[in-house]
């Protein structure tokens, strides 16, 4: 129960924030083809903040992220037990509807994967499948979200061009806009800058910091400096277990657990 001990060391105002956690994970176990990937995860992720999941590769951090929007369901041979509560609702409950859950969470993957359609249609795709038919409104949504990610000025003349014609950094911002267009509450980032150049990386990082006033953001990253730059909370996962969870400065500068210490100092990676 490292999670709860480190929460207790957090300041009072954070305790207030954590009193209404956006995502609560209870006794989560994930097994993929007989191999235990996540073990007894218990965790509360606070709202309107950036939480970074760090840990060595293969420790289960991406799987943890994917359990949050149930994309892990599509993995072959996966077994999941425990519960994940979003706003107090268990997304693994039997009557939970998966499309409804996923709509609440925007996903920003490692590499941008624009849908095979125009720039405009990429952003309009989400609202459209959720039933928005009003063309004027769709235009408005597209413009708002493209402005949100700072892409509008760059693409407003060529909204009908194929999204694959954009640079990779622009594509990643487009993917963020596409995710925001379905009005999620949570943004999930899976090493979202690992394919980007430093300038695009900075743009995305700044966007995420800006977006946290409206969204709860959970990022998987293997770059400690990035975790430090953007996150309010850090979750250190090792070997499928939560080793330490707390405020960014606490975990990075004053880790309680020995494995965390070794990781943040670079002895294990």
């Amino acid at each position, binding site marked *: 129960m490292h999670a709860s001990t480190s929460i207790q060391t957090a300041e009072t105002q954070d305790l207030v924030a954590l009193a209404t956690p956006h995502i609560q994970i209870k006794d989560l176990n994930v097994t993929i083809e007989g191999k235990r990937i996540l073990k007894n995860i218990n965790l509360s992720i606070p709202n309107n903040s950036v939480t970074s999941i760090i840990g060595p590769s293969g420790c289960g951090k991406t799987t943890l992220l994917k359990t949050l929007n149930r*994309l892990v369901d*599509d993995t072959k041979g996966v077994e999941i037990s425990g519960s994940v509560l979003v706003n107090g609702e268990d997304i693994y409950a039997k009557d939970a509807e998966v499309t409804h859950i*996923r709509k609440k969470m925007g996903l920003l*993957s*490692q590499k941008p994967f624009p849908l*095979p359609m125009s720039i405009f249609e990429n952003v309009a*795709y989400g609202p459209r*499948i959720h039933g928005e038919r009003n063309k004027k409104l769709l235009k408005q949504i597209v413009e708002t979200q493209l402005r949100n990610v700072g892409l509008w000025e760059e693409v407003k003349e060529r909204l009908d061009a194929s999204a*694959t014609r954009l640079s990779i950094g622009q594509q990643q911002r487009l993917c963020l806009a*596409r995710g925001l267009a379905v009005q999620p509450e949570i943004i999930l980032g899976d090493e979202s800058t690992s394919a980007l150049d430093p300038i695009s990386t900075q743009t995305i990082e700044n966007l995420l910091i800006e977006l946290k006033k409206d969204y709860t953001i959970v990022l998987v990253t293997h770059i400690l400096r990035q975790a430090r730059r953007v996150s309010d909370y850090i979750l250190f996962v090792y070997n499928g277990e939560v080793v330490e969870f707390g405020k960014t400065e606490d975990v990075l500068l004053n880790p309680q657990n020995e494995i965390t210490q070794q990781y943040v100092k670079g002895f294990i990676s």
Partner: protein
Amino acid sequence: MNWRLIKDKLAERSFALLLLSSVVVIFLILIGLTMKSVPLLRAESLLTVLTDSVWSPLKGNFGFLPFIMGTIWVTMISLIIAVPLCVLASVYLVEYASEALRKMVLPLMNVLAAIPPVLYGVWGVLFVVPILSDYIAPLLGVNTTGYTVFAGGIVLAVMIFPIMISIMVEVLQTIPQELKAASLSLGATKWETITKVILVKAKPGILAAIVLGVSRAFGETVAVLMVCGNIPQLPSSLFDAGYPLPALIANNFGEMMSIPLYDSALMFAALLLFVLIFGFNLLSRIILNRLEEKAQ
């Protein structure tokens, strides 16, 4: 010079020569067929030969329109049946089916592809033709022997299943998991993801599979001639007999020397088939290139 280097050069040259010879063969066929067709084209203009619908070699009438239309009818029917089935089947195999089923079905497809056409023909005569004449045609109030372009289309459709399904499955398997995840994570259902993202992304590949299917359908001879009636007329419904080009050549090859200009006419039929297939492949290559460019 070092023997090893000489061998290397020799290998390069001889490979180039071998490649050249296989390309030359195509041109030799084209030239040979054209030369043999010249007598017919001297007697009648190309336009009349292509647009005339009367075929009676004994009277010297060589109208190829019935055969061209026969080929088009049979091919179109087979595509109308095969394309939707193959697309849906391969989507099911890639997106829904279990690994075990996929591993079982795909080798089965290769077996289907290896069955000789004459067996498909026999199957057509024993099953498809009677079912058409005894059950389906009466249902629609039509009187027919069952030896129709419809029967030809059905048999052809089954014959092009394997090649189309295996290519489509391969194309669908190249669609990145992350692209599907991108659509799913926006709250799209699997069906929406398939129709709006996966099939759109796979369109060039699916078209390529169809092109290969069509090329196979154009040239298929034995199975089709066994079931489609072989009457040189312009088919006007599914239940009319037809006479595709390859069947014309195969059926009459033995007697082509007995009637004046007949041999030339059959060679012209071969040339026509050659040009049709060549042109079709060329056209589809151009379309595919366009699509791929657009997708990039």
